[in-house]
């Protein structure tokens, strides 16, 4: 299984985390695309936003491969300070 976590306004749409079978996608990008195709509200929330990702607490490109046990974070544009 993969654990996917959502932050900021995406957490309000998706909840903080979802579990999904590792076999469901090969890359971070494919994983998110699958989720967006299943969930119109999530798809709408992603529209026009540059989302970034982290895999196991490391910022990662959407081409990064994912495997069983990985933790994938879905990060809308940061706004700290």
């Amino acid at each position, binding site marked *: 299984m993969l654990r996917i976590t959502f*932050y*900021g306004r995406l957490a309000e749409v998706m909840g903080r985390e979802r579990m999904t079978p590792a076999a469901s996608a090969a890359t971070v990008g494919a994983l998110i695309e699958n989720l967006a195709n299943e969930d119109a509200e999530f798809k709408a929330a992603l529209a026009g936003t540059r989302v970034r990702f*982290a895999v196991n607490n490391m*910022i990662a490109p959407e081409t990064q491969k994912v495997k069983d046990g990985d933790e994938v*974070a879905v990060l*809308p*544009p940061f*706004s700290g*300070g």
Partner: protein
Amino acid sequence: MKSLSCRPSAAGEMIILSHEPIDPLTLGGDFARDVEDAGAIASFTGIVRKDGRKEVSALFLDHASGLAEQEIGKALTEAKTRWPLIKVLIAHRVGRVETGQPVVFVATAAAHRRAAFEACDYLVDFLKTDAPFWKKQIGRSGEEWIEPRGEDYADRNRWR
């Protein structure tokens, strides 16, 4: 102050992420107590603004625990590569922060003032756009997730 996360990530570095109010006076006092032969201490306090007609009553700050500490740690390392810093502190609130309360405190110590000023400025710019925090304004007309303004990205790009 009970902190969610408080780690001296390397000699002379401190990162604090706190669910409780942060007190720049206490933090600044502790920071200044042991700064070797520093000739310059710069600090920045960011405070939640009411922001005029928006009538903001609080911010809510989400953060990616673990990733945040790591990305801030990288920024501290970068700052110490660019400037000869003696000591550096970043304290950042998470959770609900009331209007008028500090949301961030950054302090830097160096032998000379340009290093202290520039590193402090750099780290505040970094926190605005490149650290995994997300803030929601809670105001008169409801709640609104905030994204950095164009000028925040422009400020950050000064350092590239």
